C-alpha cells in the first residue's frame, strides 16, 4: 500500500479523498493555488504545497508543477479527483514516466476513452449500441456543417476531451452552428486544454443512465449498478439518484453487462463510469466513458456499501478486487443534490465571494461532502460546485422527504446557491413520480423566479433584524461583519487587477 498520495485537486473532492487517505493510514499531500491557502483541503491534508497563481492553467492544470510537487513531497501516487487533469492522458503518461502511480486508468485506455470519436468507433465494432454521430474531428466549419446536415438537426456539440457539460451545446438551427461551435471550443479549451469538439444526434427527452464500474489490474471487472442523472441544467447534472425508476432487473443486468464490456474492450482499469442515454422506448445508447471518480459517486457508495475512493486506491496499489459481481447488491435509495455557487433566480449567474455563514445539514442518513466553511472565500477561478448533499433512505419516497428536509436544514449566507431551487426540483410532482428526463429542468423550471416568501417568515426576519440591531445598540456587537474580516488582511477581491489595461 502507498505511504503518501498527492491529491491534484481542490474543493469538496480533495477533502473527500484526503479523508479516505486518513482512514487508510496514508499521508496526504494537498496542492493549492495562491488564492487557496485557506481552503479546506489545505487545512486537512498532512502536507500542502503551493503550485502557483490562481488561474487553473497556472496551477491545478500545470502538469510540471504537480509532478514536481509530488517529487518534492515524496508521494508515490497521485489522485486527480474529477475535472482539472483527471482525464488528461498526457498527465497520466507523465506520471507513468516519473514512476508515480496515477490513480485512474492506464494512459492508453484513458487516451482511447478520452477520444470520444475513437471510443465510439471501438464500441461500434464491439457491438455496443451508439448514438449516430461524427466519426472524426473536422478541420473546418464546412465539414461540421455537412456532418450536422447528415445526422439531422437537432445536433449536440460535445467536447472530445471531457464531460461535465463543458463545451456542450444543442444546435436546433443551422444558423447557430458557427457561434455555438466557437463557444464550445473556447469552453473546451479552458476546461480541458483541448478545443476539439464533435457532433452527434441529439436524442430528445432521454434519461441519462450511467453505470459505475470497477476494474482491477488483472482483468477482473464488476459494475456497481446504475445512477440516473437526468436532472440537468445546461448539460450539467444537478440531481442524481439510484436506483433509477426506469430500469427493471432485466434491463439493469443487460446495461450493466454492456458497461463491463465497454471497459473490457477499452483495456480499462480502476474506477470508471459508462454513460448511456435511455430513450422513451427503453433503447439505450453508449454515450461515453467518464474515466474518473464521478461527482455523483456517493449515491453508489450508500446503496452498495462499497467505498469507491478506497477501491480506487486499493486497485492502483495493485490489489485484486475483493468481491465478485454476484456479491454486490443495492439496498434502499440514494439521492444527491449538487450545491452550486449560482443564483437560481438570476439566470444561474455564478456567485463568488465570502461565505459569511454556513450551517451544514446533518442527521441520520444525511451525508454532506463539502469544500467550504463559515468565513471562507469562494474564488471566481474554479468550478462553482461548493458541496454535495447526499441522502440514503429505505425507499425513494423517504429519500425525497429526507433530502428536502436536509435542504431546509442547510444555510449558506453571503453568496447565492442553488439550495432553494433544488428543493423545488425534488418537490415537483413529476420528480416525485419518477418522471425524469434530461428535459425536466427546461420543461418545468425554465422561467423559475424563486418561491414566494410567506408573510410570517418576513415578519420573523424583521423581528430578527430588529433584535440584532437592538443588541448592537446596547452592546456594540452584532451578527456582523463576518468575523473573519477582523483577522484576514485581505479580501479575495483585493488581489484582483481591477479595470483598465492588462
Amino acid at each position, binding site marked *: 500500500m502507498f505511504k503518501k498520495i498527492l491529491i491534484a485537486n481542490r474543493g469538496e473532492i480533495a477533502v473527500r479523498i484526503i479523508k479516505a487517505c486518513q482512514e487508510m493510514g496514508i499521508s496526504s499531500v494537498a496542492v493549492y493555488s495562491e488564492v487557496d491557502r485557506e481552503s479546506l483541503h489545505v487545512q486537512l491534508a498532512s502536507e500542502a504545497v503551493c503550485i502557483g497563481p490562481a488561474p487553473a492553467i497556472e496551477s491545478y492544470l500545470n502538469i510540471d508543477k504537480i509532478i514536481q510537487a509530488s517529487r518534492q513531497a515524496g508521494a508515490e501516487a497521485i489522485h486527480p479527483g474529477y475535472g482539472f487533469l483527471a482525464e488528461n492522458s498526457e498527465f497520466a503518461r507523465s506520471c507513468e514516466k516519473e514512476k508515480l502511480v496515477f490513480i485512474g486508468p492506464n494512459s492508453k485506455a484513458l487516451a482511447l476513452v478520452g477520444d470520444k470519436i475513437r471510443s465510439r468507433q471501438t464500441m461500434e465494432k464491439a457491438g455496443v449500441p451508439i448514438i449516430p454521430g461524427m466519426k472524426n474531428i473536422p478541420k473546418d466549419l464546412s465539414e461540421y456543417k455537412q456532418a450536422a446536415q447528415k445526422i439531422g438537426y437537432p445536433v449536440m456539440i460535445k467536447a472530445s476531451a471531457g464531460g461535465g457539460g463543458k463545451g456542450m451545446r444543442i444546435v436546433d438551427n443551422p444558423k447557430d452552428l458557427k457561434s455555438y461551435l466557437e463557444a464550445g471550443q473556447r469552453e473546451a479549451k479552458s476546461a480541458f486544454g483541448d478545443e476539439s469538439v464533435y457532433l452527434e444526434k441529439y436524442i430528445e427527452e432521454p434519461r441519462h443512465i450511467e453505470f459505475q464500474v470497477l476494474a482491477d489490474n488483472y482483468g477482473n471487472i464488476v459494475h456497481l449498478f446504475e445512477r440516473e442523472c437526468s436532472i440537468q441544467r445546461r448539460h450539467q447534472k444537478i440531481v442524481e439518484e439510484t436506483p433509477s425508476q426506469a430500469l427493471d432487473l432485466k434491463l439493469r443486468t443487460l446495461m450493466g453487462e454492456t458497461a463491463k464490456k465497454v471497459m473490457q474492450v477499452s483495456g480499462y482499469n480502476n474506477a470508471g463510469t459508462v454513460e448511456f442515454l435511455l430513450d422513451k422506448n427503453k433503447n439505450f445508447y453508449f454515450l461515453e466513458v467518464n474515466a474518473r471518480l464521478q461527482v455523483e459517486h456517493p449515491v453508489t457508495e450508500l446503496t452498495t456499501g462499497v467505498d469507491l475512493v478506497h477501491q480506487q486506491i486499493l486497485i492502483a496499489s495493485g490489489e485484486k478486487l475483493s468481491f465478485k459481481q454476484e456479491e454486490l447488491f443495492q439496498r434502499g435509495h440514494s439521492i444527491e443534490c449538487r450545491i452550486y455557487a449560482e443564483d437560481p433566480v438570476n439566470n444561474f449567474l455564478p456567485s463568488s465571494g465570502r461565505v*459569511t455563514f454556513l450551517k451544514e445539514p446533518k442527521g441520520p442518513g444525511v451525508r454532506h461532502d463539502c469544500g467550504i466553511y463559515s468565513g471562507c472565500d469562494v474564488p471566481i477561478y474554479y468550478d462553482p460546485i461548493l458541496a454535495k448533499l447526499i441522502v440514503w433512505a429505505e425507499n425513494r419516497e423517504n429519500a425525497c422527504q429526507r433530502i428536502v428536509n436536509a435542504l431546509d436544514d442547510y444555510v449558506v449566507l453571503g453568496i447565492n446557491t442553488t439550495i432553494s431551487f433544488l428543493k423545488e426540483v425534488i418537490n415537483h410532482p413529476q420528480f416525485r413520480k419518477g418522471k425524469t428526463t434530461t428535459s425536466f429542468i427546461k420543461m418545468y423550471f425554465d422561467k423559475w423566479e424563486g418561491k414566494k416568501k410567506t408573510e410570517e417568515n418576513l415578519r420573523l426576519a*424583521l*423581528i*430578527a433584524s*430588529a433584535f440584532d440591531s437592538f443588541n448592537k445598540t446596547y452592546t456594540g456587537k452584532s451578527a*456582523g*461583519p463576518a468575523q473573519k474580516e477582523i483577522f484576514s488582511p485581505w479580501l479575495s477581491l483585493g488581489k*484582483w487587477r481591477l479595470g483598465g489595461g492588462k
Partner: protein
Amino acid sequence: MEYEFLVNSVLHKISLEKKENIFLVSDGKKTFKADICFISPNVISILIEGRSHKVYLARDKDKMYISLEGEQFIVQEPLESGESFQKSEEKSQEHELMIKAPMPGKVIKINVSEKENVRKNQTLAIVEAMKMENEIKSSIEGYVKKILVSAGDLVDSENPLMELVKKRGVP
C-alpha cells in the same frame, strides 16, 4: 425601540420593547409577545405563542442576510445619505446606460466597438466566472459611447464595462 428596514425596496416598520426576559413586538397591525435570544452570533431563537423559530443572520455592511425555514431574505437598513438615489438619476436623465458586470469574473471578449450601434439583446461582451461564460446583453437599442474594459481584465460585481446611449424615442 422602533426599527425601519427595506426588504425588496419596500419599507417595513417593527418595534421591540423589552419586558423582563420577553419582548413586546409590534408590526403596526398587531402586538404580541416574543421570547428572543441569541444562540450564537449568527443564530437567533424566537418563540412566539409556543411556536419555535430558528433564524440565521449575517450582517454585511448595511445588509442583513437572513435565512429561516428554508427562505432567504435580504434586509437593509434605509440609507441616510442620498447616494443611492443619485446613481439611479444618473442613468435616466442622460439617456445613458452604464453596463455593469453582473458578477465578479474575467472579461473574455468585447463583442462591440465604440460608436457602434447596438440592437436590444445584442451580445456586448462575454464575462467568464467559475468556468462558465456569461453573455452580457444590451437591454436597449442605442450606440456604444465608451468601452471601459478590455479582454483579460478581471472585474468585480457592479464594475462598469461600457457606457451605452439610448436611441431617442425608443422605449
